[in-house]
Structure formats: C-alpha cells, structure tokens
C-alpha cells in the first residue's frame, strides 16, 4: 500500500470514528508496550493526521524497485550504554537486516550516535563508556570477535569526510592491505580498489588519476571515497553517522542514491538529523529520545502513523 493510499484510508477511518481498528497487541510493534501506547486511531482523531505536516512525499523509486529484506545481520538485545554512570542508551532492542536501511532519528543528545558507535565497538575508545546487553552479528556476540575483525565486517562512515592524507588509491588500498600479513602488490590490489570505487560511484570521476591526493577532492567526492574505503573489504553492515550533514544538496542526493544501491548487498544503519532524508532513504526508522527507543517500525509507519506522542511531535517538528 502506497503512503498516499494509507493516508486516504486514515482520513476515511477518522471520519467514521473507528477507534480500535488496530488491536492493542499490534504485531507490527512487538517492542512497544501496548498498554502505554494509545491506539493509532485515537491519535488520528485527536488532531490532523501527521502525514499532512510532512512536506516531502517523494519516494526513491530505486528503493521501491530493490527493496528485498534479506537475512538478519545485527541483533541488538537490551543494549544499554552509559558514560561515567550517565546513561546514553537505555535498553534498546533492534534488529538490522541485509537489504534494508535503518535510520536512527531523534533530537541531539538522544543517543543515536552512541548506539551506532556501539555496533562496531568504537565506544570502547572512550574510556568512561560502559555497556550492558548484547549485540549479535550473524548470531555471534560482537564482543567475542577481535575488534579488528569486527570493524572490517561492520564498517563505518563518519559525519565529516575523513580521507587519509594520501592518494585516492592508497586510501582504498589501506583498507584492503594488512588484512593479509604480507603487503600485497599494487597489481593485485588494483582491481579490488577500482571495484570499490565503482560501487561507491566515484570511479568515473577519478579514473584518470588515482594517485591524486585524496584531500584535493571535493567534499562530496571525499565522502564517497570514505564510503569506497569502508565497503572495500566487503563488510556485512555499513554504519553511517550523518554522512551528508557536511555536504551540499547535490552531493547529498548522490550519496542518498548510493545508499539505495548499497542496500542491495549490505545492511545500512544511518544516523540522521534530517527527517526528510530519513524518509527518503530508510526502510525502517528507529526514533530515540533521551536514550530510549520510543518508536521502531517501517518508515511509513513511523512517519505517517506514529504510535507515540513524542514521535508524532518530533516528526511534525514540534521539538528537536
């Protein structure tokens, strides 16, 4: 059912005054306590439907075409993280599937980035961070994996493009080298580097001179180089921490299309402040507020028929 159709239907039910169309124990919200969350039709009756407030209605056609949910990659179970005793993420449970983009949204300081960085154990670099609960990567606890292995399987792209101060080729090759003990020859690496650059949609722009310093590239190109670098070792999950917030709208568009394509081969988790972006790229959305997972469901559900009052306020722009 397309979002437009859903919207029409909501209006119809609202007029008819049917309050209990969705049962309290809705199977679509297994994580939320049905007692606390008011049934969705009440929300619709209370005030105008949420979806009308959201201006962006365009959907990425590419995503619709390729959206096939694959096997579960990451399973986050009752995960809590705190910094020096101060909780940042409180008992969050999620599952992340291959072929899907999960967007983590929420106001500043709500624990989105902390949750993301816990998925490849980058929070361990902060000495005061403590964690409880478990994260399973293909059924295996990530804390049982060596950190170097985990981070090649769960790759990450940061907010600021951060290429290394070396050539384009070396940036990508660096990710591939040293996995094997012996330093591989450039001739062996070249096809892998070119493949990664192609998948990141950067190859056509840089093919003439792969030995150019990476810092000479534009911001959007640098970010795509960082994506190429992250996906070069063929990870299973790609974490993105506001990958477009430092970029102009055109580069953002390019990266969003790229995310749509990358989703075919990996699971993507993206943190974003930009709700329109979450709406455009994500298949599932998790809304965090003060460390709590308030809402978790498909993009259409969260944006057009949120179950919690806070989510509705947030997606309508009431706070943030």
């Amino acid at each position, binding site marked *: 059912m397309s979002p437009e159709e859903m919207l029409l239907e909501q209006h119809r039910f609202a007029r008819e005054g049917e309050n209990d169309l969705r049962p309290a124990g809705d199977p679509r919200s297994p994580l939320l306590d049905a007692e606390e969350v008011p049934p969705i039709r009440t929300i619709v009756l209370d005030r105008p439907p949420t979806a009308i407030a959201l201006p962006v209605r365009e959907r990425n056609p590419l995503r619709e075409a390729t959206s096939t949910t694959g096997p579960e990659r990451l399973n986050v179970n009752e995960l809590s993280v705190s910094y020096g005793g101060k909780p940042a993420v409180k008992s969050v449970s999620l599952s992340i599937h291959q072929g899907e983009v999960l967007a983590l949204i929420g106001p500043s300081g709500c624990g989105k980035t902390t949750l993301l960085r816990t998925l490849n154990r980058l929070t361990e670099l902060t000495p005061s961070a403590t964690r409880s609960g478990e994260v399973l990567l293909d059924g295996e606890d990530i804390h049982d994996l060596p950190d*170097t292995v985990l981070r090649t399987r769960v790759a990450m792209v940061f907010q600021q493009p*951060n290429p*290394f*101060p070396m050539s384009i080729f070396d940036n990508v090759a*660096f990710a591939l080298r040293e996995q094997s003990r012996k330093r591989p020859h450039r001739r062996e690496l070249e096809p892998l580097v070119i493949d990664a650059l192609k998948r990141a949609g950067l190859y056509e722009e840089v093919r003439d001179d792969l030995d150019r310093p990476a*810092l000479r590239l534009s911001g959007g190109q640098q970010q795509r180089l960082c994506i190429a670098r992250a996906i070069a070792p063929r990870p299973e999950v790609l974490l993105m921490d506001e990958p477009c917030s430092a970029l102009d709208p055109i580069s953002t568009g390019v990266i969003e299309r790229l995310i749509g394509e990358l989703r075919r081969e990996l699971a993507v988790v993206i943190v974003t402040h930009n709700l329109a972006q979450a709406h455009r790229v994500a298949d599932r959305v998790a809304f965090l507020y003060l460390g709590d997972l308030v809402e978790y469901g498909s993009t259409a559900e969260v944006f057009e028929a949120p179950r919690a009052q806070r989510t509705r306020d947030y997606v309508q722009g009431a706070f943030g």
Partner: protein
Amino acid sequence: MSAFTPQYLPGGEPPNSGHGRRSSPWTWRWSDRLVLVCAWTAGIGLCLLSAAIVIYMGVRGIQYLRPGLLFTRPSVSTSQSQSGGFLDPLIGTALLAVIGIALAVPLAVCSAIWVAEYGRPSWLARVVESAIEIVAGTPDIVLALFGLAVFQLGLFAPLSFRAEGGGVFGRSFVAAGAMMSLIALPPLYAATRDGLLAAPAHLREAAFALGKTRIATIRRVLLPSVRSNIATGVTLGISRIVGDTAIVLLLLGETLHIEAQGSVPGLNVLRGTGSTLTTYVYDNSPAGEGAAPQKAYAAAFVLLVFVLCLNVLVDRIGRSHSRATGLALSGGAV
C-alpha cells in the same frame, strides 16, 4: 554570524574605511607606555642585531672566501697562503650531521610515538618527558664530558681505537655523532610529538573504524601525516649539530685532517678523528692556535650560510605542509 556591514545613512558622512579614533598614548599609564616602548625596541633591536651579524660576516666572508678554500685540504703552516683551505672540516661537519641525525631520528620518533599515542602509565610518560627535557637542558660541554667518559670504556674500544698501552682513546666520528644525536633529539622529539598530538582525532577514528590496530594506524596514517613535522625537526637538529663546538672539541679529536683508523674502508673513517667548521673557526680565530682570522671569517661565513639555508628550508616545509594538507603545523619547540 554575518559580517558587520556599515549602514550608509543618506546625507551622512561617508564612512571611514579605516579604524575609528583611538585613545592617545599620552593618556595611558606610565607602566603601559613603558612596556609598549620596550616591546617595539626589543623587536626592532633584534632585527638590527641579526642584520649586523649577517652583514658583517657576509662582508668579511665574501672578502676572504675563495672557491679554492672549499676544495683544498688544510695544512699546518705559519703562512696564510700555505695553510690551505677547509675541505676536511667541511666534510667532517657533513659527516657528523649525517651520523647524528641518523641516530637521533629513530630515537626521537619512537619516543614521540610512545608518549603521544601510548603514554601509559602516565607517571612513566611524565618521566620520559622530563628525561628529554633534561637532555635538552644539559650544556653540550657536559654531554661531551659524559660522552668521553662512556666511550673511553673498554667496551666501546671498537668505536674508536686503543692507544699504545691499552687505553681507549674514546674520540671518533661515531662517539661524537652519538652525542650529537642527543643534541638533535629534543627539537626532533618535540616536532614529532606536537605533530602527532595535532593530528586530527578523526584520522585515528577512521583507521580504527577500518579495523586497523593502533600500531598500524600510527605507521600507515599518522607517521606519513607528520612527515613534514619530522622534516622540520631534522633540519632544526642539523642546524644544532652543525653549530656545536664543545662535543667536537672533546669527542672528535679536533684533528686538522680526517684521520682514519684501521683498514676497513668507510668504517675506518667512522672510527677516526677529524674536525668541523666550528672548531676550524675557533682554531683560526685570534684566540686559537692557527691565528688565520681571514680563513676563520671565510669558514664562519660558509657555516652561517649553511645554517641560514636550513632555516629557510624549515620555513618552506612548514608552509608547504599546511598548504598541502590543511593541517595546522605546530612548529617544533627548540
């Protein structure tokens, strides 16, 4: 956020593009005026002083410097026309700088890596820091004396030679170079450490997120990015080695010619003795034995030009680095 834009009022005075009216210095406190005058005087005075040194040495040097002096070996003579040039001291200076830097770079870079990237337990890091500060603060003549005591041990006899009767001479290019490396160490260490500390955190994070270990990150990402800091440190270190006299006097033997020891080519020079431009200047100054002030001026001029060139090079490296990478270069402390 937006820049202040002056309002053009119709009929008003055209706005002054410069500064507005300031308070007159005559209304200031006496102490403020005094400090202001001192600041200007000291700055301009130092400029004049360094200009005086360069101009005086330049005039004297150009007056007495003949190209032949650079290519002829010195010889002992009371006549200035017979005492030759300063080829041997020139080679000695270069050789000592190479040995000193070759020993100092690994030592300084490795200790800087440890302090900047590991540095745990923190008391040990503080000890390392103060150890390097002590080395930096020790007068070179004290280092030379210590070096002489060390290299005269029987253990180090192969590095110089045994005099007749079995005593270890303790003076050679290796011995002097080893002590010179301690002179070059502090600036090199400081430049490398500051570079590592200034390396943006996102570089480290990016490498960790690719599944790299800390040491791989240091070797493949951080060290290349502080290459120019190390280069700055090397040039600073060279200029300190080149300018040092005490260690040469005590540890290089201060022989007029490079005297090789032993029969192995190359190694015999390292075990042998020699002199540098600084001791050559000293010996030929009116205070020294040679008493050939004209040669002293010529050699001093060569030395000065060399050190000035190194300083220009340091400056160049710093600028090209910040241009190429956009990373701020924190200059090496001396």
